[in-house]
């Protein structure tokens, strides 16, 4: 299907300090034209490489991060027939189990929803200027900073 067929796409792109709500992201992408929604939710794990994590701290270069997130949506729409797409990221201090990121995508059929959502989170992790610090009992580390 030609992705350009979808004329009425609605994008939701947000960075916020408050808790993220999957129900809101799902509502933002629900469409009568679509049979499929895929939602990726990134949560704070209690460990990294088997070392206990106390909490995470996220900071964003917000203006640019929002622009890069919009670019990802554009690139996703060029590859799959995405109806609506939501991409929200949290900043600040997050405890174990809390939600750091939500990506939701609606498509007419299911295969595209998975492919589009996975592409979007993979690309977000590569290009969007957001940084995560892991806080351990005995110190802290900026994730991925060193080779």
């Amino acid at each position, binding site marked *: 299907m030609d992705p350009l067929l979808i004329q009425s796409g609605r994008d939701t792109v947000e960075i916020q300090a408050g808790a993220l709500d999957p129900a809101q992201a799902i509502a933002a992408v629900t469409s009568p034209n679509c049979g499929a929604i895929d939602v990726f939710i990134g949560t704070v794990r209690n460990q990294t490489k088997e070392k206990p994590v106390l909490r995470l701290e996220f900071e964003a270069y917000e203006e640019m991060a929002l622009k890069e997130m919009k670019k990802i949506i554009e690139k996703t729409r060029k590859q799959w027939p995405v109806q609506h797409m939501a991409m929200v990221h949290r900043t600040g201090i997050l405890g174990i189990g809390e939600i750091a990121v939500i990506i939701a995508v609606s498509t007419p059929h299911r295969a595209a929803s998975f492919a589009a959502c996975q592409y979007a989170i993979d690309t977000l992790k590569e290009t*969007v*200027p957001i940084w995560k610090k892991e806080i351990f009992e005995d110190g802290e580390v900026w994730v991925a900073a060193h080779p």
Partner: protein
Amino acid sequence: MEMTCKLIAFGIARDILGGKISQISLNEPYTVQGLLETLKSEYPRFEDLASIKVAVNTEYAPMDLILGPDDEIVLIPPVSGG
């Protein structure tokens, strides 16, 4: 001629520079590459990073981009969102 730039830094780059906003003096031709070389010589810890990029006016900048005095110049250490 020297040009003084305002640098904004996030993540580990902020820690290395000791603050979110700092100043740096560049020599001509004021390229992104020149900025990074100056930075690495003044703050050798940048050499240890997996990567360091520069955003100019909220876009990733190529190495040969010429910086101007009014540009918003931001250091982008390896991103780790999500």
